[in-house]
Each structure stands twice: as C-alpha cells, then as structure tokens.
C-alpha cells in the first residue's frame, strides 16, 4: 500500500508488539480450528464420507466417518495454530498456516460429505476449469501492476475477449482464429487503458471502471444488434477440443485433470511459469520491477518507463483476452450479455491475494476456483450451507489479506502512479 496508515504518518519507531503477525495468525487458526472441532463436529452426521475417484459412489479412494473426520481435522488446525502461538522458527510459519487452513477445509468437507460422496477427479478438474480465466486475468494484472499500471479493466478485457472469440470464431468457423481474436479483443481494451493512463495521465482506477462499462455496453449492444437476430451466423463458435496425452492421462486424479484437457489450460499454466521466470530471471523482468517500484530511478539509469509500461499492459491485454475466450470457447457455446458477471474482479482479487506474483496468483485462482466448484457441489447435494456464502469467499479472503489481519500484502510501490517524465 502506497498510502501509509493514517496513524503511521508521524510514527518514527514501531514498538515490537506482543501480537505480532505470527501470534495473530496462530490465534486466528486456533479460533477457526475450535469452530471446526466444536460446530462442524457437533452437526456432522456420524456416517461415512467418501472421496471417490470415479463419477459414482463406487471406488472410494478415501473414506472416513464424517463426525470423526470433522473433529480430527479441526484438532489438526487447533494444533497448528497453537504451535504458531507458542512461537516456532519463522521458516515453519507458512507450512503451519497451510496445514491449519487445509485442516479447516477438510473438517468442513467431512461434515458436508458425511453420508455422501465427493468425486475427486470431477472436483479437481472443475476447480482448474473455473480457475482458468482467473489465472489468465490475474496474470494480465501481474504484468500491468508490476510495472506500475493498475488494471481494474480485467472484466472488460474478459468480455471483449469472449465476444470476439464468439463473433470471429463463428465467422471463421475456427476455434484457433477465435482464440487469437479473443486476445485481440483484450488488446483493444488494454490499448485504451494504456493510452489513457500512460499518455493522458487519467486516474487508472477510473479508466478501468469506465472501460469495463464501455466493454459491457459495446458487447451488449452488438450482441443485441448482430448476434440475437442471427445467432447461427454470428454466435455459434466451435468449441475448443479436449486433447488427451496417452500414458500421462492414466495417472490417477492428476492425469485426467492435467493431461486430458484443452489447450487453454496448458497455455495458462505455461504462462504462469513463463511470467515467473521472466519477472525474476530476465532483463525485462528486472526492468519491469524497477519501473513498478521506482520509476524515477529506473528512468535515471536509462530504462524507458512509459515504453515498458505500454508493452506490459498490451501483453497483459492479450493474455486477459485469451482468458475471455474461456467463456465462449470452453465453458458455454455462445456469447450472452454480461456473461463474465464479475469474474474479472475475482481475477483482480486473485492477483491481490496472490501478492502480485504469478505463482501466488495461480494459487489464489485455484483456491477461488475450488470455492466456486464447492459451492456448486454443495447446492447440488442440497447442503444447508448457502452457495452464496461460499461464493463470497474470494472477496472476504481478499479483504482479510489487504487489511493485514493475516499477513499484509504489499503492492508495487509505484502501482497506479502515472509517470510524467523528466
């Protein structure tokens, strides 16, 4: 956060507090662990919860008594929290936090799945599929924001991408042409964002919000004028084929999820690795980070600040546009008005929750994808937990993260600040 806490403005030395990050984390884990143990344990039915490999109830990979599981994993979370509270070496902090959260999720699952079954493969592949646009959108955000341009227009880039994929993919009857034009659609919005934010110095958040509305309006307008009257000609894009890699696809769980899927999944995962390596290992990455943290210093050593920002925002637009293709070429067979319905903002949340890093964004996107998948699963089996509350999870998690309740996330120092030049 570039703006300091109001109270910190004149604070010179920060006294070491008893409730430092680690203790607060520990306390939070103990608290949710107790909730899991007592509440989930009490209401969970004492029936078998089965986590299966197949689509039906047969072939359980893992079975456990629901009530016992809920209590067991709740206790695991409490133990992880208590260890943090007691104070352990710093390097164990992340691992213990991970164990605590996984314990809580498993406890919740044991309660929900008791007496039923959860198909693991379907859950995993659904998670990845729902996370797919989030990964691409968040990556686009990473590129822009690491070089200092806030990208709130991911939603607009998704919409344009989805629209172009449907329109041009249908007219060319080619899914690949559709994918490329989706990227171009994202590029159009990114170009407007870049010109307005970098050249005309307009507030980047304002531009982003307005461009979202513009994309919503333009795609909605053209949808009603072109696609609705003649869907056959303009709105029946071919679907992205599923490719199966023989051998690798036979690995349990991971195989069908990663190696019996569509090209976009591989593209997304490849891009995560590429952007990570690019940012941390290449000249371009060093310059991008320099421009995002301290543009004046970067300029002084001869880096073209605005040029690099243009490049990163435009490449981000291509990636987010490709993410938009997911909606029309993978998820559904046609474009509808406002079909992304806020996914761009979940991608933004994933970017922030993932601390502006590619792998962080991937992890956050998968977590949010899992929450969404779980929400649909729970409403399908008639769980008493309303799906809306699970769908709130990405947003709540992001608020908790930026508020520093569980470890502060920090944006690039110059994020959102236009660079006026020497």
């Amino acid at each position, binding site marked *: *956060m*570039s*703006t*300091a*806490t*109001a*109270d*910190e*403005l*004149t604070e010179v030395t920060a006294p070491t507090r008893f409730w430092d990050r680690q203790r607060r984390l520990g306390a939070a884990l103990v608290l949710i662990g107790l909730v899991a143990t007592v509440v989930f344990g009490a209401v969970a039915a004492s029936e078998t919860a089965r986590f299966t490999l197949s689509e039906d109830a047969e072939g359980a990979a893992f079975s456990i008594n629901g009530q016992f599981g809920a209590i067991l994993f709740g206790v695991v979370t409490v133990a992880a929290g208590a260890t943090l509270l007691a104070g352990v070496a710093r390097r164990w902090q992340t691992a213990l936090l991970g164990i605590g959260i996984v314990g809580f999720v498993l406890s919740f699952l044991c309660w929900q799945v008791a007496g039923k079954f959860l198909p693991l493969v379907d859950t995993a592949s659904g998670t990845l599929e729902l996370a797919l646009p989030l990964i691409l959108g968040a990556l686009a955000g990473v590129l822009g924001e690491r070089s200092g341009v*806030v990208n*709130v227009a991911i939603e607009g880039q998704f919409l344009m991408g989805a629209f172009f994929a449907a329109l041009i993919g249908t007219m060319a009857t080619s899914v690949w042409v559709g994918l490329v034009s989706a990227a171009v659609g994202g590029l159009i919005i990114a170009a*407007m964002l870049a010109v*307005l934010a970098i050249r*005309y*110095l*307009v*507030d*980047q*958040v*304002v*531009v982003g*919000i*307005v*461009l979202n*509305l*513009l994309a*919503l*309006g*333009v795609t*909605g*307008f*053209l*949808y*009603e*004028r*072109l696609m609705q009257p003649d869907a056959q000609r303009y709105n029946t894009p071919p679907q992205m084929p599923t490719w199966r890699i023989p051998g690798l696809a036979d690995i349990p769980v991971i195989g069908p999820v990663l190696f019996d899927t569509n090209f976009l999944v591989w593209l997304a995962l490849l891009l995560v690795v590429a952007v990570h390596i690019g940012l941390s290992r290449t000249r371009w990455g060093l310059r991008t980070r320099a421009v995002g943290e301290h543009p004046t210093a970067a300029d002084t050593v001869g880096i073209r600040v605005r040029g690099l920002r243009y490049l990163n925002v435009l490449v981000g637009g291509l990636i987010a546009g490709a993410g938009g293709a997911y909606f029309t070429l993978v998820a559904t067979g046609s474009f509808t*008005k406002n079909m992304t319905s806020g996914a761009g*903002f979940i991608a*933004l949340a994933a970017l*922030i929750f993932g601390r502006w890093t590619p792998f962080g964004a991937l992890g956050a996107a998968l977590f949010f994808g899992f929450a969404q998948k779980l929400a649909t699963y729970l409403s399908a089996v008639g769980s008493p937990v*309303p799906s*809306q*509350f699970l*769908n*709130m999870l990405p*947003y*709540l998690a*992001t*608020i908790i993260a*930026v*508020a*520093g*309740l569980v470890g502060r996330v920090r*944006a690039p120092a*110059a*994020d*959102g*600040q*236009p660079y006026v030049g020497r």
Partner: protein
Amino acid sequence: MTATTEKPAETRQPESFVAVFLRNLWSANTVTVTVLSIVLALVIGAILIIVSDPDVLATFSYFTARPSDAFTASWDVVSEAYGNLFKGAVFDPEATTFRAAITPISETLTYAAPLVFTGLSVAIAFRGGLFNIGGQGQAVIGCITAAIAGFALPLPIVVHLLVALLAGLLGGALWGFIPGILKARTGAHEVITTIMLNYIAGLFLTWLILQPGVQDPGRTDAISKTVDSSAQLASFGGALRVNLGIVLAVLVTAGVAWLLNRSAFGFELRAVGANPAAARTAGISVARTYTLLMVVAGGLAGLGGATQVLGTAHALTPAVAGNIGFDGLLVALLGRNRPWGTLLAAVLFGALRAGGNRMQSFSGISLELVTVLQALIVIFIAAPALVKAIFHLRAARAARLGTSMAKGW
C-alpha cells in the same frame, strides 16, 4: 494527434467582448470540454449504430457508385434513433395531452434521483481523497434495509417513510464504515475493499431474497414482499412515475454542498484530501476523518438505494439496485466532484436512460448504447487533454480540469 499550435498574433488593442467570449468559448474550460465530450460520444455512438445495421451497411457496398444512398440511409437511422432519445428524455412534440408532454421529463427525473445520491457519495469521498467504488454495494445494502423497514414495520404513514429512508441511510453507512475503519486502522486500500464489498453485498442480497419472511409468499421466484404503501415515496400524480425522491435528492445536494463548503467536517475532509500529512500536522485526525467520510459516503449511497426501492422498485429483486452505484461513479466524475455539478450530471444520465428506453422500443436500438454513450462521455471528461487535442482547443487560463487523482493502490 499532435496539435499544430499556431499562436495567433497578439493584438495590442483592447478586444471586444464578443472576441473575448468566443476565444474563451473555444478553450479547454469545463463547459466546453463537457459539451464537446458529449458531442464526441454521440458521434461514436452514431458510428456504432451505422456499422451494426445490415441495411445501411449494404448501401456502403456500392458507396463509390452512389454515395448519396449511404449518406441518406446513415442519416435516417441515426437521426431516428437520436430523435427518439430526445423525445423520450425531454419533450415529445407530437404529444397531445399535458401528461404525455411531461412524461419524458418525469421519466428523466425518476432515473436521475438515485444517481444523485450515489454520485454525491462518490463525489464527497473524492474530495476527501478517498475513492469510493463501493457505491454499488452500499446502495444494495441500503435497498435491503429500506425495503425490510418498508414491509416489516407497521408504522403510520409519514413516520414509516422516514424510518425506511433512515434504515437505508444506516445500512449504507454501515457498509461504508467497514472500508473506512479498515483504511484508518490498517491502511487497507479502499478501492480494493470496496470492490470486494460490492460483490459480498450482491451475493448477500441474492441469498436474503429467498429466505422465508423476506420472499414474497405468493411467488416462487426471487422477489421480496412489497413495501407498504405508507413507506413508498409518493409519486406526483397519476401515471407519472416521478416521485418525492427527486425532491429529496435536491435537498440532500444542498445539504452536501453545505457540509462540504461550510461545515468544520467539510473543511477537515478537504484538508485531508489535499494533503493528509499536512492535515495531520495541523491537528486533524486523519483516521477519524477517513472513517467518518466513508460513513457519510456510504449513507448517501444507501439513501440512493432506498430511493430506488421505495420510489420505483417497491420490492427487492436480485437486480433491484441496477447499476446505480457504478453509474454514480460516472456521474461524480462528470459533475467534477461538486455537489450541484453532480446533480446536473445525474439529470443528464437520467435523461439518457429515459430516452434510451424510448430509443429501444421505437427504433430498436438496444439500451446498451446508452451505457456506451455514458462511458464514452466520462472517458473524454476524464481525459480533457484528449478532447483538447482532438478539437485543437486553446488552454484555458483557469482550467479546473484535474486530469489525475491517481494515488495508486
């Protein structure tokens, strides 16, 4: 887009009033930029209408042979669409009765009323250096609390309306308090937290509507009970939809103008907005100002939601708040974050919306075009340098065109 700036030879003689007026007219002042932004948006909208009309496009296929056909066809479709936009928003010359003559204005003001509140919410926050993107969520919560007070409390006629409005105000204020206190205590950026709270509010609404006691018992779809007539904002008569909401909006605009320019809190928030470090040195509690400011901003947006649900919608649906929160953002930008400017901008947006309805039903041009127009207007307003370059405007001496409020996350 490089403007060739040939400076006119400076004349030593005193200029006539007309010359001064004309020169100032064609400079980048607030009014000129606003008008030109609207013109530019309408031109781009016209191009969209033309390229999306297959019949007109057909005439362009033999453009070189008979260009007049293409021009006539384009002119016809665009003038018909914009004619209906005007007739639906301002005045229909073919109206025969008095009611038909004032219906367009009634519709315009009906759509404008909630936007005034959400616009003021964003504007006042801006003046204090906060970017309240949470108008949507605050309006949704305002809708919820106002509607529940409207159908659940048995109260006499005037009291009920006041209580329902107050409930909307408090609901929005609560939803504004969260990002405010988080900003003040932890430094969490309000843009991020308010975006997230928007979606949380929306999801909460979709859940709440289906709960017993809230959902209309006679319906299976997602709609709540209807607000009692004693809590509805009374309309001005007959079939006209315009209601007390717009009167309330004018009063609240005056109140916000007073708060901003005349009250101690207004001074503090402007000081914090201009320079938080300096304000703190001067003894103003920045944390308290941020929190209070977000509470006020949230309350205003909540009132906007209350106006929507008590004035026109009368029941909660998943889309009850429409897009008034995000539109309020555009309205505030168009109104240059000034209370009365925001009111005017809200009326313009209301007019576009009311006219857009007629354009949709009479010319078959989708209402989405209005969204495009609104977004384009605000893009040009937010980038006055762009408009200046396109029209080769002179730089105004006292241009109040803040291009950038950018502070980053």
